[in-house]
């Protein structure tokens, strides 16, 4: 596709339920990022992949959050035993290159998945 695609666009989960959010990056993009955006806030970094390698997961708020990108393309962000504080928009982004020394490529964002935990 032409851009980063995320699904579902909206997800309502009951507290305690597991959810999986999908991201299809732009074809050929090496780097993939997940961000969490709470209402009225700027996006906060969650995790970074370079191809299939998860190089930085320092932003994941708890061990209930897990991300994977097994074939270096599509990525899934999984949240186990969802809590109300997990309610946010989850944004995925990709860029052609990334990592040390590669600063001149911008990240392109998907439309996000709005997760509401009730």
């Amino acid at each position, binding site marked *: 596709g032409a851009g980063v695609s995320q699904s579902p666009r909206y997800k309502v989960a009951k507290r305690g339920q597991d959810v999986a959010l999908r991201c299809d990056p732009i074809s050929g993009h090496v780097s993939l*990022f997940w961000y969490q955006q709470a209402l009225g806030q*700027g996006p906060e*970094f969650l995790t*970074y992949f370079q191809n299939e390698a998860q*190089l*930085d997961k320092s932003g994941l708020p708890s061990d209930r959050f897990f991300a994977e990108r097994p074939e270096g393309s599509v990525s899934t962000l999984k949240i186990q035993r969802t809590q109300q504080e997990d309610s946010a928009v989850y944004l995925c982004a990709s860029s052609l290159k*990334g*990592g040390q020394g*590669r600063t001149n490529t911008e*990240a392109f964002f998907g439309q996000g998945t709005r997760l509401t935990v009730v």
Partner: protein
Amino acid sequence: AQSVAQPEDQVNVAEGNPLTVKCTYSVSGNPYLFWYVQYPNRGLQFLLKYITGDNLVKGSYGFEAEFNKSQTSFHLKKPSALVSDSALYFCAVRFNGYNTDKLIFGTGTRLQVFP
């Protein structure tokens, strides 16, 4: 630590007037700075970036930004605002190293352009 600050929660401007959305940064080393715009229920759209070179950077939709090293600022500007420019604007600094690559965003500034 890398950070950016957007001191204004909201900026109001009349259509046709020039607009400025402020951003200051704090980084160790060379700053790699970005502006993104977010429309309601949409993801972030890239506007422009400063990596190196000219201090005045031109971007999408007629926006430009001025990098000022002495004032550690990267203000977003447009000579003549449109009602359709009304949106949420985020300044960000890129931090990348051996095992990381991330954007650190400001809290955002809501731009309201009145007809």
